[in-house]
């Protein structure tokens, strides 16, 4: 199902989106159309701003739920199973759990070593 989202719905919507701009170009003498158009562009900028400055929108999320999207993930493992893994880890004593964690982080790979992501997780 999600395959359809990315490879069918996405392109179709991009094409429909593109029709809006030539249409506005033919109507740009009407102040009401200009107002609506500006408002729409501002809305779009608001959405895009979230990519660049995500923490600006933290106010809309209760403090205890802000970190939820920053789970540690492991290739090909569903998140629910990761939870069980970490529970298992916390149960075992020192030495062994150390080796487990190492194998976990190996699976995660280089992407997670980006300083910015690590900072987010530490936060």
């Amino acid at each position, binding site marked *: *199902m*999600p*395959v*359809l*989202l*990315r490879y*069918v*719905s*996405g*392109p*179709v*919507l*991009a094409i*429909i*989106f*593109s029709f*809006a701009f*030539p249409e*506005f170009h033919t109507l*740009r*003498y*009407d*102040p*009401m*159309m*200009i*107002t*609506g*158009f500006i*408002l*729409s562009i501002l*809305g*779009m900028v*608001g*959405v*895009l*701003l*979230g*990519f660049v400055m*995500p923490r600006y*929108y*933290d106010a*809309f*999320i*209760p403090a205890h*739920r802000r970190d*939820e*999207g920053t789970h540690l993930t492991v*290739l*090909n493992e*569903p*998140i*629910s199973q990761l939870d069980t893994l970490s529970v298992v880890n916390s149960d075992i004593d020192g030495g062994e759990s150390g080796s487990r964690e190492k194998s976990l982080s190996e*699976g*995660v*790979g*280089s*992407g997670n070593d*980006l300083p910015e*992501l690590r900072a987010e997780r530490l936060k």
Partner: protein
Amino acid sequence: MFLRCTHAAIMALHKIKAYAQKGFRWIFPEPDKAEDGRDQWPSRAAFLLAAMGGCAGQGNLLRYPSVVYNNYGLQWFIPYLLAVFLIAIPALVLEISIGQAYRGGSVIAFNNINGRLKGIGLGPVFVSLIVVQYFTVNLAWIMNYFRNSFTSPLPWENRIEDFYNNDVVANPAPIAGSLTDGGNNVASYTSYPAIGLIGETVGWSAFIWFLIWFSIFRGVGMTGRVVYFTMGLPIITTIIFVGRALSLDNAGAGVKLLWGTWRGDQLASGTVWQTAVGQVFFSTGIGFGYFTSYASYNQKHSNAVMDAVLICGSNVLFENFAAFAIFGVVGFLRRWPQDGERLGAFVVGFLTLPEAVLQMPGANFWAILLFLTLIVLGFSSAFVMLDVVATLLVDSGVKYSRPTIVTALTLVSFLMCLPYCTEFGYYFLDGVDRWINNIVLIFVVFGEVVSATTVYRWTDITGRVGLPAFIVYNLGYFGGLLIGVTVAHGVGSAGPGAGAGFGSFVVCTLVAGFIAKAPASDSFGIMSKVRGQASQLWYLAFYSVSSCLTVDIPS
């Protein structure tokens, strides 16, 4: 003696107060709570009805028949159903399942997919907030019709368009602007001489805002009751209308226009496909955020796929059923579609229905029924939109209670709707509505479906194939879209654009596959290397959309 009397009186007062509170709670029930303390729908039916009420609106009753009228014939159902299954249902599943799994409105839900998607989550809230403000004014105009339905003879007799323009909308015509020859510059801007507020429109808007406030201030427990009325009544009246319309003289010919005609040649033109996607998209109501926020009040393990199919299916059924009423009238009035003439989005409904009402015996009764149906349908879409914003504020953990938040929000929105109640309000509404729909709404849904399937657990992918390959692949995807669309508009034909866009996507995909980190493997040789790179490509293209997403977000 006196003391005892006052004591008894006080006791009685306390009792009355207790009963009054009990009664208040009985009429305005507090919502049930889930294990995590979140409000919960009284039943699954309540959620489904509220969601269906959100998507069923004038889009079904008025817009759909007009679209079908322009594209009459059974061939219409090919692009229409394809759009339902390929776009509406998948997007709906996404919106419902994230709300349900992450227990929050769209901002919280998208923050859970990735911290950088908070903006995407805010998009639907923005759309809903803006749309609900002018949508109520739209309903205020219908209230004007409703009021006039009680006078006999109906005041729009022999002057349907004139009545709409001068009595209902009541906007003096603006002085139209224009572009210079060739359209390179603006010759003059349109000007709007009249700017006063229109009392009646303001009054009816206030009335609609009160209804909206009443439906949602108490939370989903109360809303769960309101929806039985707001969905039940339109279904019953629509059945009555279809029955009445089909019993009109020559109604069969109108129905045959849609269900007994085949015009296969129509499918060759691009317009019909574009129209189908647009209709399905707007009538389902994706991108307003209410599916996500309402699903967040579900039980955590409800069946989101089934819910999406039910909501979408009922929407399709409802609009096609309602179309029988319009086409019965079309046959009766013998208003056949002319070749080359395309009517606007709401024209057929606004022209045929009030006209048909005039022709029926007991015209007032039918007019009242018609406009009541339209109001209830529209109003059930309106309050879900405001509820999206309310859910965002309630969830964000502000210190005020839900009733306080909803009351403040309703008052602010009422003030914000005043510009649409003026003597240029109709044109202002058109300007805002058009670009919010054509730009923000489409962009928001594009963002939802693409971003969720691109950045979800993206570090897993870069860990496996390396960052450069990931960047190149997505450059190919987004660049391909951009190049395709730009080229198509530049040369004015779709073929070369599709070629250029798809071509650059394929090139980038091959490059990405080539530069991807090789997977660990014990075997040697060219074939094994190719196989290895191909499997890396799978990670690039399908990992985010694969089982991980569907397993992590139970749907």
